[in-house]
């Protein structure tokens, strides 16, 4: 049994979707997260079992809205999308072909996508839009299946990932965090399609790093398209995936019997006590930052851990930077109040903290 499989225990690995893969790059320095992801551990289930469920949830209204908008963009053989691609990329009028990959049934989608992409790359097929495609990507030894909204292929021999999102672009502006999240997700698809192209013996660079982002314009449902360059997201992703492939280094020094198994009993409840699980997790250092609260299923557990050891990480990276990397709140306060003797290399931050402390006292008394 492989080390990572033992870490996960006798449960199937958690499948990564594009959003999960994109999130891998969110906190690259966190060893706990890197190991859990590499082993395919169900982080959400782990956090629940520990009594620290993540505060994530999706409103049915948001889900419905997303589905309705996607259907609108794709209806009638992607008629709306075709107009947008003609406007945006100057698609010639005879390029209109449409293939619904899902016509073959869901179990054959990945192989059918592969066959269609191969035909397109050899210029044997006239289609522009491949709807409901399925791609795959190797993540730390496991195959993750990915479902981009649409793949577009057009004159000039280049493929584009089309990402349909229901957040609005108002007067040419969208919420930057949402655009960034869409770009990270689309980068995963670009990477997967490039891997497929390489595997088929075609030039992977024929997959454009410009993805087509489709959003509703202003307050109506009418879609608008823009090109988003995802080169940076691709680079970050590549780096993080390479790091995950090198998890051996993280495994060094860990006891061989260590496991985060959620092996359930007959009623689906993990047999292991939450305390044991927490102890096992404690063997691997986390790098909690407040940003985790929006990206990682384990955030509430790690925050609690950071609280119990009074870590300055809780206050955010900016504060931590100001404190010159002093990790414990009590140590920083001790330096400020003169009750802790500065260690080597701490003289400067201690001087600034003492001064700040004197000024604060002076102004508030």
């Amino acid at each position: 049994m492989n080390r990572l499989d033992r870490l996960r225990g006798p449960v199937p690995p958690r499948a990564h979707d594009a959003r999960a893969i994109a999130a891998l790059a969110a906190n690259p320095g966190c060893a706990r997260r890197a190991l859990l992801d590499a082993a395919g551990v169900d982080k959400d289930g782990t956090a629940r079992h520990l009594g620290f469920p993540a505060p994530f949830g999706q409103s049915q209204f948001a889900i419905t809205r997303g589905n309705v908008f996607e259907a609108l963009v794709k209806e009638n053989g992607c008629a709306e999308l075709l107009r947008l691609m003609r406007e945006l990329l100057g698609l010639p009028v005879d390029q209109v072909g449409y293939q619904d990959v899902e016509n073959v049934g869901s179990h054959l989608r990945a192989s059918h996508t592969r066959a269609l992409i191969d035909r397109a790359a050899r210029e044997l097929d006239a289609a522009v839009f491949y709807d409901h495609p399925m791609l795959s990507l190797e993540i730390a030894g496991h195959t993750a299946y990915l479902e981009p909204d649409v793949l577009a292929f057009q004159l000039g021999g280049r493929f584009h990932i089309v990402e349909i999102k229901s957040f609005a672009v108002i007067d040419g502006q969208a919420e930057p965090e949402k655009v960034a999240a869409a770009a990270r997700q689309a980068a995963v698809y670009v990477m997967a399609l490039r891997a497929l192209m390489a595997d088929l013996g075609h030039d992977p660079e024929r997959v454009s790093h410009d993805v087509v982002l489709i959003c509703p314009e202003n307050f109506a449902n009418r879609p608008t398209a823009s090109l988003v360059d995802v080169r940076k997201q691709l680079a970050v992703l590549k780096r993080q995936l390479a790091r995950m492939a090198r998890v051996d280094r993280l495994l060094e020094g860990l006891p061989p019997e260590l496991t985060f198994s959620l092996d359930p009993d007959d009623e689906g409840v993990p047999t292991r006590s939450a305390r044991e699980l927490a102890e096992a997790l404690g063997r691997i250092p986390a790098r909690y930052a407040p940003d985790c609260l929006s990206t990682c299923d384990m955030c509430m557990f790690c925050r609690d851990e950071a609280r119990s050891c009074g870590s300055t990480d809780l206050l955010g990276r900016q504060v931590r930077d100001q404190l010159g990397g002093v990790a414990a709140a009590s140590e920083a306060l001790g330096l400020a109040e003169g009750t802790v003797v500065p260690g080597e290399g701490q003289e400067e931050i201690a001087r600034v903290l003492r001064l700040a402390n004197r000024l604060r006292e002076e102004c508030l008394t």
Partner: protein
Amino acid sequence: MSESLDALERRIAELRAEVRRAVKARDGARARALRGDLRRAELAWDEAIMAEDPAAIVPGLRELQEAGTSLMPIREQVHQALLLLGVPAAARLVVAVNAAFFSGALRGPQLTSLRRDEERSFRSDPYARPYYLCAALTDRLSPARGLLADSTWPLEARVVGPLSPRVDYLTAAVRIAEHLERLADSPPGAARLLSRMAQNIPGAAEGFAPADPMTVVRAARAELEVHLAADAAQRAEVAARASGQLTDVERLFGASALSTLRGAC
């Protein structure tokens, strides 16, 4: 009276919180039981407020909502829309045409099991009906997802190649425009539908102004010119295969996934 309403409101609020807690804890059974209690409390509240103010029901709105009804069976309403369009169409377009020109009583979810029902009927008593609402066939001779067609159409019109969705879209736009031209006064919903479709056809619409039917016809025909020959050739090839390889049922409702091995790709 109002005191019991207050008490009920408090109880409802408590139950809602408990339901959400149960859902969060993934305790499905408890959530269900609590939802039952919640439903009962809400009903009691409804009754209590009715007793307090019998005039509370807004008149008129209900009638408004039920204005669009039709006595025609659903399959006939769908057929009516398909006849107008003349090409295989997805449920959304069928519903939109029904709303624009006909009863407006058709709802998307009503169409989901239609094809299956028609297939069952055909299997038990083939050709007993003058027409069946059937599938469009892909180049693998499998049923195309989501498309509805008329069994009386020639096979060439019921199969789809890669170019067909565009050709059919343009054809549908032409047919809708022509139908609008024939009507003495055009229903506003129909004009909106045409304008929306025209947005996606080069030269068919100016800005957001309502589309002129004849301009739409001209523009759509111009683009059709580009695709028609290639599309017809592809369709003819698929249709020939379909008539040679498929059983009667399969010709109408498509071959199952396994038999698609006989297909092209």
